[in-house]
């Protein structure tokens, strides 16, 4: 019995020291982490919505090949896409991961609800990544529909 208490006490001491250390590092890095997230968000906004255009930024996350694709889409007052950026995704490296490339994303610039926005119709899909390409297209359509309302 006495041994169990001794072992438990030792384990508890280690946990307390570890928790204390982590709390310190957390408090120390927290403001920086929050600042980074803010800067990253603002940079993305600048990328999808040029400063001379007024409009709004929409966040969507259509389902890709292996998980949601988090995207940011800038739409101007006329309902045209000004820019698309993929913030986060889990697509296959080398195939679906190519959706982040400007050569693919820039195709969406200028599109509006009047366009079909479908791969193989008015958008060139990425070779070997039909599902990922289609997901990005549906994300853009979703964003345009959101703005309309």
């Amino acid at each position: 019995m006495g041994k169990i208490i001794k072992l438990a006490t030792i384990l508890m001491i280690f946990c307390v020291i570890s928790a204390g250390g982590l709390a310190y590092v957390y408090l120390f890095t927290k403001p920086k982490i929050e600042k980074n997230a803010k800067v990253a968000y603002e940079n993305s906004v600048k990328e999808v919505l040029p400063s001379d255009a007024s409009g709004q930024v929409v966040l969507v996350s259509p389902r890709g090949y292996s998980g949601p694709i988090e995207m940011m889409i800038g739409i101007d007052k006329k309902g045209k896409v000004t820019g698309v950026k993929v913030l986060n995704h889990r697509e296959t490296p080398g195939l679906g991961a190519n959706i982040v490339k400007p050569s693919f994303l820039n195709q969406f610039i200028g599109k509006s609800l009047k366009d079909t926005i479908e791969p193989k119709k008015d958008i060139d899909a990425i070779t070997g990544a039909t599902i990922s390409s289609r997901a990005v297209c549906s994300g853009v359509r979703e964003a345009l529909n959101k703005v309309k309302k």
Partner: protein
Amino acid sequence: MNLWKDFNAGLIKENPVLRLMIGLCPTLAVSNNATNALGMSVAVAFVLIGSNWVIALIRKVTPDEIRIPIFIIIISTFVTICDYIMQAFYPTLYAALGVFVPLIVVNCIILGRAEAFAYKNPVLNSILDGIGMSLGFALALVSIGVIREILGAGSVFGIALFNPTVAATIMILPPGAFITIGFLMAALNKMEKKVL
């Protein structure tokens, strides 16, 4: 001389990935390009050296029965610190490696070295073992990363070498990791035989 041996062992003779065959999970996951491989190596080095140091330091006050939970507390503390620091100071690296950092906790190289080495050896030897093992891990991981990135994406550290359309995409997908590790292991075995 002993210190040198402890340091040297991890590089080739007891290379964690290619010889001891531990820590294969993160190796397979992050070696699809050279940059990720290098970033992961640095993160693992920080955790491994840190945990080896602390475990060697406290090995005399650690009761045998609860050594594993204590190792895990120490290792996960270092991993979490590493996670926060990366998020705060290297956000671009974190964007690429963020998902893999928590996986370092279960990287068996770290628990393996704690149990097999740091728990039984003095502090200095343990730190050197940590450095050696980290370098060995980095060597293996970066070699695999470079080979896979060249063959699979036609670039090295993100610098394009040739048109990626002629690259073998399979090399940056999971099978490419197994193929590359297999060839590297074979090459290392062949080399070692010649030396002996």
